[in-house]
């Protein structure tokens, strides 16, 4: 048998083995299938009782999403709810802001079922998170061009440049920032 014929037969054997589900020599296909099987089984369980939809990932996406998404929701919701609670509407004037520890609501309370079965709607009051509601921790200064001088970024950079050019360093020291409107 020529070398070329042998190679052709070997290739045919590998292809046949893969298609038939028989592990070909040197291919650990069994391990791959055992790793994928649970996913397949989950999809089949989701679609149980729905003839003709076995094995299809998108057979009932709503149910699949609702079941799988819960774990994700349980993790992320408390963080989101804390954020929402923190920046909720400000207390009325004259009323002392509450310092009591806020209870973290259950993720289930923040999830409302949509009329479409399986679709989860998160009750996020996103409009209350506008910039006007955020506490102003530090007033932001309007930035302006710091003149027409070509400033170095740092003293060390200026000193390095001075070493190369032989020019002296001009260090302008100030209160505030030269690129702030009020400086």
């Amino acid at each position, binding site marked *: 048998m020529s070398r070329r014929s042998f190679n052709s037969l070997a290739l045919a054997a590998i292809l046949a083995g893969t298609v038939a589900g028989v592990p070909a020599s040197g291919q650990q296909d069994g391990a791959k299938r055992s790793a994928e099987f649970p996913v397949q089984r989950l999809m089949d369980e989701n679609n149980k009782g729905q003839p003709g939809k076995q094995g299809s990932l998108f057979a009932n996406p709503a149910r699949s999403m609702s079941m799988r998404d819960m774990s994700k929701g349980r993790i992320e919701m408390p963080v989101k709810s804390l954020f929402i609670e923190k920046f909720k509407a400000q207390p009325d004037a004259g009323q002392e802001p509450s310092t009591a520890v806020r209870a973290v609501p259950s993720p289930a309370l923040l999830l409302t079922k949509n009329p479409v079965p399986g679709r989860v709607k998160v009750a996020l009051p996103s409009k209350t998170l506008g910039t006007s509601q955020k506490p102003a921790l530090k*007033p932001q200064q309007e*930035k302006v*061009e*710091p*003149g*027409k*001088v*070509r*400033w*170095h*970024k*740092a*003293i060390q*950079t*200026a*000193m*390095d*440049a*001075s*070493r190369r*050019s032989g*020019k*002296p*360093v*001009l*260090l*302008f*020291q*100030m*209160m*505030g*920032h*030269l*690129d702030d409107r*009020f*400086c």
Partner: protein
Amino acid sequence: MFSDEEVAKDINQKFEPVWVSVREVPIVTIDFGKGHKLTRTLHGNVATYVLCSDGTIVDILPGLYERDEYVRQLDSLFWVHHYMPRTADPKAFLADYHRAQYQSIKASGKAMEVNPFADLSKVSIEISVETILRPPGWRNSLGPAVRPPVLVEHPDFSKPGDLAHWKKLHEDTEVNETQRRGPVHEILLAHPGAKPNDVTKQLYREVLHADIDDPYLGLGETLFKDYPFTEDIPESSPRARGNTPAKLSATAQPSKFVSLSPKASRN
């Protein structure tokens, strides 16, 4: 100042410029109601250092200067830096320079002027303080008489040219040269080979009268002394602590310099 084309061009040609912030500037906002607000900075101050490439201070210009005088002073310091490596002992030369300037200001109220191109003369001379410093007013005596500028009380700030004739800026420049520059030379004479971090706090506290370690920049006593509502007085104020400003500055924790990060850069 740095928006002026000529000033910027002069600085870019002669120096490697960098700016740093020593602390935040106090900002006062008065809300008159109905959206009418007035915002101003309060008690801000500046200093211009000229440094060698290793960070050694050549000299410092304290406070804000009028444009022409600022350019003139920077030019003088450029030449002092230029002469330093051409002397037998640069450290001794720098100390002699500060001593001579301090004594000149103390005696006549004005600093001596630096002779440019002294080392490019046809007659070779030894570079020393005696050969490069000239009496005050020396430059003006060389050229035609310069008519003093007409100063204005209320300049049009939208025109950079008008700012150069602002009376208040000229008065401040005069104060810088006659009252603040002498103590600066004294500080630098006491700290030979000083780097900016060695003298900055002292400069701001003693020369510019703004203690950057004090959260109220030394204004705390004035602000809170006669204020009746004690519950509004912050705990860090001198009155709440029962300290005098002198005690406060002695006990205050040293503040860190604010990191510099200008948006514009040549790199």
